[in-house]
């Protein structure tokens, strides 16, 4: 019981750091940046769930991030344009009447629901098509990557409907606040941090549930799971949809935090970068995924402020090293170090929380 208390105590400590200390100490500009990283951390949490726990290497999370972000952006655009008005980019793209699929997004409730429901629906559809046919492993990875590529092309190509490469930007009013005001950015930071915290607790609960155990079983032996009477396709599709919903929510938070959603955020490279961040943080632990996303984005900003080209070398090299030497990422290294220490202290190590054994992934 005391351990449980300590566990919650630590969570509370992190919460305190993020919710009280950081806003007090960080200059507003840095706080806004941290909010952006927290958005990415939410996507990473979803990747940790789908890939780390479920073995689905999804290289197209940007698609769901984008769907959520655009749903939010469309609402804000319509809100700025006022009743009957057109978003600014439509005017200069020669679109004269509001396209039908935009209309529901004028309603904030519909838009907020769509933020989660649209990505979930797309993931359910794709998951059903793909997992039912037992497309998995590398095949799934490549398909999800191609999906990201196709999605970006579609978004960019339909400029009059989506804002093209520019994306949706220049919002004036975010639920009654000026998006560029420091107070708005501060409250958006709090909202993002809270959402991340809640999703983390939810995801942790999921991992610990029977469903979570089943998910790990599917990752390690999909075909064996069938002979336990479960349909792995269902398990995977649901998990994929949950991770998609998280990415959608992150995208929706990103829009007021940064003030823009555009195709450059959703393509192959940004999607891959997040997966890389998860790998570096430690894919088998949800906290590792979050940690990785924050560290990598922080390092990216810091590094590219100093020397731009070097970042690619560093990112690439760091990544090669982590994959080769520490496939379980930062959290894995930490566990190893801790276990080594524990073993030295008391030779017959208790196995209450044995480290994750070296995992062989299910080949295609």
């Amino acid at each position, binding site marked *: 019981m005391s*351990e449980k208390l300590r566990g919650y105590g*630590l969570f509370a400590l992190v919460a305190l750091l993020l919710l009280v200390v950081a806003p007090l100490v960080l*200059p507003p*500009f840095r706080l806004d940046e941290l909010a952006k990283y927290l958005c990415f951390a939410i996507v990473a949490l979803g990747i940790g769930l789908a890939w780390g726990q479920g073995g689905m290497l999804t290289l197209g999370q940007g698609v769901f991030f984008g769907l959520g972000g655009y749903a939010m952006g469309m609402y804000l655009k319509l809100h700025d344009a006022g009743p009957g008005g057109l978003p600014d980019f439509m005017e200069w793209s020669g679109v004269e009447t509001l396209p039908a699929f935009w209309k529901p997004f004028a309603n904030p409730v519909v838009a907020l629901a769509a933020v989660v429901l649209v990505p979930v629906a797309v993931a359910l559809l794709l998951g059903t098509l793909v997992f039912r046919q037992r497309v998995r492993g590398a095949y799934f990875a490549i398909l999800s990557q191609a999906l990201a590529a196709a999605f970006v092309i579609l978004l960019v190509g339909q400029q009059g409907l989506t804002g*093209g490469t520019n994306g949706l930007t220049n919002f004036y009013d975010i639920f009654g606040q000026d998006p560029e005001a420091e107070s708005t950015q501060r409250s958006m930071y709090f909202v993002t941090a809270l959402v991340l915290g809640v999703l983390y607790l939810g995801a942790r609960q999921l991992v610990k549930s029977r469903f979570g155990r089943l998910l790990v079983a599917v990752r390690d032996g999909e075909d064996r799971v069938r002979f336990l009477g479960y349909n792995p396709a269902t398990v995977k599709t649901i998990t994929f949809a949950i991770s998609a919903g998280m990415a959608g929510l992150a995208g929706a938070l990103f829009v007021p935090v940064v003030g823009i959603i555009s195709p450059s955020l959703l393509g192959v490279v940004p999607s891959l970068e997040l997966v890389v961040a998860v790998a570096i943080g430690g894919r088998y632990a949800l906290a590792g995924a979050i940690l990785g996303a924050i560290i990598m984005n922080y390092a990216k900003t810091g590094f590219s402020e100093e020397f731009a080209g070097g970042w690619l070398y560093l990112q690439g090299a760091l990544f090669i090293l982590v994959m080769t030497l520490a496939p379980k990422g930062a959290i894995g290294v*930490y566990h190893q170090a801790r276990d080594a220490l524990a073993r030295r202290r008391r030779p017959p190590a208790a196995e209450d929380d044995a480290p994750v054994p070296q995992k062989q992934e299910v080949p295609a």
Partner: protein
Amino acid sequence: MRKAFLRRMAALAILPSMLLTACGGESGENASGGADGNTIKVGLLHSLSGTMAISEVTVRDAELLAIEEINAAGGVLGKKLQPVVEDGASDWPTFAQKAQKLIRKDKVATVFGGWTSASRKAMLPVFERNKALLWYPVQYEGLESSPYIFYTGATTNQQIVPGLDYLKEKGKKKVFLVGSDYVFPRTANKIIKAYAKANGMEILGEEYTPLGHTEYSTLVNKIAQAKPDAVFNTLNGDSNVAFFKQLKSAGITAAQMPVMSVSVAEEEVGGIGIDNIVGHPVAWNYYQTTPGAANEKFVKAFKAKYGAKKVTSDPMEAGYNAVYLWAEAVKKAGSTDVAAVKKAAGGIALERPEGLVTIDGSNQHMYKTARIGVIQPDGLIKEVWNSGKPIKPDPYLKTYPWATGLS
């Protein structure tokens, strides 16, 4: 299991404290503003990494050159300019955030930056809400006039329209439109279609390809079948290489079907392959070969600083101009205050490498001379036509009767 969780959270807890220590120092250094003591901070915000770096780095170089020259001549208001360089990383949200950082944290007096329309659109709200200044150095699609942006590149009536005038003058009646699938080509083509309608030209086709597209055989086939007199090309970046190579290997030459490009400058010619593009026309306001003492000085200084093999191009020159124009406005205003600078800027006229450049105070665009050039076998561009005098900028094409209803 609880313990594992606890330890994981402990690891997570290290991070914010790291952030805190890292940022604690920054907030301290923040105390000094943009114009303290003997320096004035100015921001340079271009992509130094990612796909756009290839173009934007050269603009930053030109801007740094201008800052160096101004400092060597004594600076502005007796103070030296101190550039704060940031990387937009070819990513539009990053542009917005870095702009915010330059304005709020570094408290720069002004920012020179951007290349793509998308990056400008992303930065625009940041500058407008913070009442800060952006100098944007690239030709663009017009239909914009932000009170907090100065546009030192051409707007459509200084590049697209003269390009069409030239084709019309050469008797090219049937035109095929090719562009990358984004805002500039689509807007440009809308203008071209309106122009064509009013001037008895016929548009035989309008095709867009995704950014980074490299397979042009189908498109070249479409063009070959349509048999136009000329092609108006608004492709972007590497797509130009593939397009011109595949056009050439299909046996289509500049003599029988000239391709008028508005995004191919001196720097791109080498990558496309001189023999693939030689003889084709381009439309800009400046070439490395543009005559005049100001340009000779610019080209010489640029090569001296960055290497004899470097070429100068229109966006570089526009970036170089931007720094001088801003400095002139600050001198005239006697302060770096944004409102004062904006007020002083209108009507400033400077002899620049491209010729006389005057700031139009009503829309913060420049009066510029349009120049049509042809790619030479040595890879440089030779001017074959110009508008004679600087053209008044008209980003909304209000003075062109055929363009009503476009904006």
